[in-house]
């Protein structure tokens, strides 16, 4: 058996994983990061918009402070977040951004004097103070009182990830790519590392560590339509759930974005609608004003996504080989505007669709975008249930996002959490010795070897893993998409339970040798269906609407009964998760109130 040992093992080398790794390496510990793809291809690189921190350098950010950022974050979460964590986050965010600058991120900077900016397609001017020249600039993002999103042109995630990966290389962090963690090594009490499969050779290795971090990003790929990279399939979360003792928090909280392009679900920016783009149905009829007379296309992300779905359910979507969609029309904005102010959209349409948005309609549909749920941790980033296990980034439910994450707050979370949780892991590493039990390592390895042998031999059956996955896609999109209701969720849960049975009977058509992609899928599919069940079952039980979780049959946000966080664990052999609940927050810096957007009634806490 191949064994590799280290102090800290980061499963994931996106922004969260690498930021934690750097903190530990900086303190003299040995660190290994595992990643399915070269670190720089991690999904963090796809974020173009930017990251929030209350620096208050720009004219439109003047008067910003961590307190204002805190209020925006808690409101954004629809009071579902842990307020202690939100406070830690907003206070540390400015330091994290400055540190990124120190390490080499080419942030856009303040240019003094009168500057032209755009809002709602209209130009306006603002005066940037000469004394702020050269400080980090910020742009506007939805749901915030001040402009606070730090950015590097249209490549924020890319630049920040490259800078962190450079820093990791400098600090001697060892990044091993094309490796996939498939199980945690533990004894029900302490985590001792992972069993990972090499995606170049198929070989299994036991990585042993005093501390293990899950930083595997989102699990959007349990949905067919997702803006996420194809590797965002919840692998890290599955290893946690499979322990039976580590709970996943708020899995039912899934964010959708209105305008993913069809067929590949690449995101086109909200700026299209902001600048005056409209949504049309199969008759090229503009339907949004019928549903939202005031705001029409400019209602918030979740509202527009819901209305689009509702309209398609009436049979008014445009049929295509990839399923129904709607049209986004920006033709009336004109060539000059589209080729300059919406350059990125123009490029996406031309490169991926062969559509010229100056003359043609853009096919779009609401698309899964962000997973608020994940491995439940405390404010130090330590997972519930196992000693020595931590989580950070999108894979974690550290819980500063509650039921709805604000644009720009996720990228910022990765590095801020990385800094804070990295520090806590350093304390942990200094303070304790982990005893690695050879029996636990051998058991974990034997179990994975046996699983692979069974899949190759079709011992449990010969269901095709891709067919099973497609069945899961159909079921979850129908039942636990943007709109939810008791009846559809019940159907969805029942269907997914049946699909779980099939997932347990998959077998390979091929021999499974080397980097075999069919085996990769087969090893993961049961876990993916379990994640889908955590989402659907959690959504069925949560009889209220909060943030991105919308129950048509329970339209109120119910603070009296549901100011709680769902915790889902999975007992060995069960075909449903066990759900428990804890208070959403122990500390109230800001008592529950109205978000100020999105509408909806609230049942008060002591109502």
């Amino acid at each position: 058996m191949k064994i590799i040992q280290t102090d800290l093992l980061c499963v994931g080398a996106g922004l969260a994983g690498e930021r934690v790794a750097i903190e530990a390496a900086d303190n003299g510990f040995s660190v290994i990061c595992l990643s399915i793809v070269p670190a720089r291809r991690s999904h963090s690189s796809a974020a173009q918009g930017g990251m929030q921190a209350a620096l208050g350098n720009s004219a439109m950010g003047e008067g910003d402070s961590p307190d204002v950022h805190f209020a925006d974050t808690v409101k954004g979460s629809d009071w579902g977040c842990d307020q202690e964590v939100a406070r830690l986050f907003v206070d540390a965010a400015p330091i994290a951004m400055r540190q990124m600058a120190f390490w080499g991120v080419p942030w856009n900077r303040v240019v003094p004097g009168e500057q032209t900016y755009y809002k709602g397609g209209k130009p306006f001017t603002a005066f940037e103070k000469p004394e702020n020249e050269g400080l980090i600039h910020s742009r506007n993002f939805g749901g915030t009182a001040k402009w606070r999103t730090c950015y590097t042109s249209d490549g924020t995630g890319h630049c920040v990830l490259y800078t962190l990966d450079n820093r990791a290389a400098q600090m001697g962090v060892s990044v091993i790519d094309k490796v996939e963690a498939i199980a945690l090594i533990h004894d029900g009490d302490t985590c001792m590392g992972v069993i990972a499969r090499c995606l170049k050779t198929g070989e299994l290795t036991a990585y042993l560590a005093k501390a293990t971090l899950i930083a595997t990003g989102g699990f959007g790929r349990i949905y067919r339509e997702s803006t996420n990279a194809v590797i965002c399939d919840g692998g890290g979360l599955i290893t946690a759930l499979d322990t039976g003792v580590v709970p996943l928090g708020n899995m039912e909280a899934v964010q959708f974005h209105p305008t993913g392009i069809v067929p590949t679900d690449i995101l086109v920016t909200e700026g299209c609608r902001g600048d005056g783009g409209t949504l049309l149905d199969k008759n090229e009829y503009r339907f949004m004003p019928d549903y939202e007379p005031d705001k029409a296309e400019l209602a918030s992300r979740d509202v527009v996504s819901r209305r689009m779905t509702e309209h398609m359910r009436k049979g008014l979507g445009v049929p295509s080989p990839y399923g129904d969609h709607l049209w986004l029309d920006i033709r009336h904005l004109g060539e000059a505007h589209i080729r300059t102010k919406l350059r990125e959209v123009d490029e996406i349409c031309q490169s991926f669709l062969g559509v010229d948005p100056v003359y043609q309609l853009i096919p779009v549909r609401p698309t899964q975008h962000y997973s608020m749920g994940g491995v439940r941790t405390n404010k130090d980033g330590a997972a519930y249930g196992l000693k020595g296990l931590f989580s950070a980034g999108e894979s974690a439910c550290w819980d500063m996002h509650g039921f709805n994450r604000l644009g720009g707050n996720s990228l910022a979370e990765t590095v801020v959490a990385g800094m804070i949780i990295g520090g806590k892991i350093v304390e942990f590493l200094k303070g304790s010795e982990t005893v690695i039990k050879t029996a636990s390592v051998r058991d974990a390895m034997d179990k994975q070897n046996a699983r692979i042998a069974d899949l190759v031999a079709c011992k449990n059956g010969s269901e095709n893993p891709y067919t099973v996955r497609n069945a899961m896609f159909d079921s979850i999109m129908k039942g636990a998409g943007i709109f939810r209701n008791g009846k559809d969720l019940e159907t969805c849960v029942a269907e997914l339970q049946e699909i779980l049975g099939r997932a347990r009977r998959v077998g390979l058509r091929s021999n499974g040798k080397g980097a075999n992609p069919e085996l990769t899928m087969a090893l993961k599919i049961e876990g993916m269906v379990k994640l889908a069940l955590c989402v659907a079952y959690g959504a069925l039980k949560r009889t209220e609407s909060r943030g991105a979780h919308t129950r048509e049959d329970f339209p109120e946000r119910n603070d009296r009964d549901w100011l709680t966080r769902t915790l889902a664990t999975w007992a060995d052999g069960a075909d449903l998760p066990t759900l428990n609940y804890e208070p959403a927050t122990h500390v109230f810096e800001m008592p529950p109130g109205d978000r100020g957007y999105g509408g909806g009634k609230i049942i008060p806490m002591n109502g």
Partner: protein
Amino acid sequence: MGRTLTFNIFRYNPSDPASSPHMDKFTLDETERMTLFIALNRIREEIDPTLMFDFCCRAGICGACAMVINGRPGLACHTKTKEMPAEITLMPLPVFKLVGDLSVDTGTWFRGMYQKVESWVHTDKKFDPKAQEERMDNALAEQIYELDRCIECGCCVGACGTALMREDFLGAVALNRLARFILDPRDQRTEKDYFDIVGTDEGIFGCMGLLACEDVCPKQIPLQEQLGKLRRKMALAAVKNILPKFLKKDF
């Protein structure tokens, strides 16, 4: 539409003793707005589950899907079948180690590259969490970003004659990376430090200047301009007697 597409795909699984390098033929009915991302996934899911290839972002951002498409290195995710002939030949990128079929190991190559050029800010300053950020001119920040846009897809390396011939050649991508740090005032390395890294045949003087790299770069990074600047800068550095040993060399 209505075309039937034929894909000729290079096949070899080095981990399977029974496998030997050959080409396989697959056919698919073309659908509207089809890209190679869609086509390859359909082939894998409907016809041959063993087909190895890499995609990640499928949005032209991560660089995972570079391969040789009808003889030319490019990103498969933003290649539309509509713009291709009905017969499409796909090969893995050369230079990089083959993982299997169309999948290559770019990670190891690029890690080696950035260790060689020490692709990080060299400074003796210490970060002070209480201090305001150091100021930078916005135009300069944007210039650095221009060079930072490289997605390490490897197309330029795969297209480069020198890289094919000599394994130790750093390639346009490395020289561009270095140019990025030369531009960055936070990096305190001197001309001599840079010269030590690239003032050789492995570096700037191995380049034949035939531009294949820039032609295939999906991010349209001005590689040629950077190569030119670097060549002049390094030649100057040599003349300025920074490295007398180098002056003896003929270039």
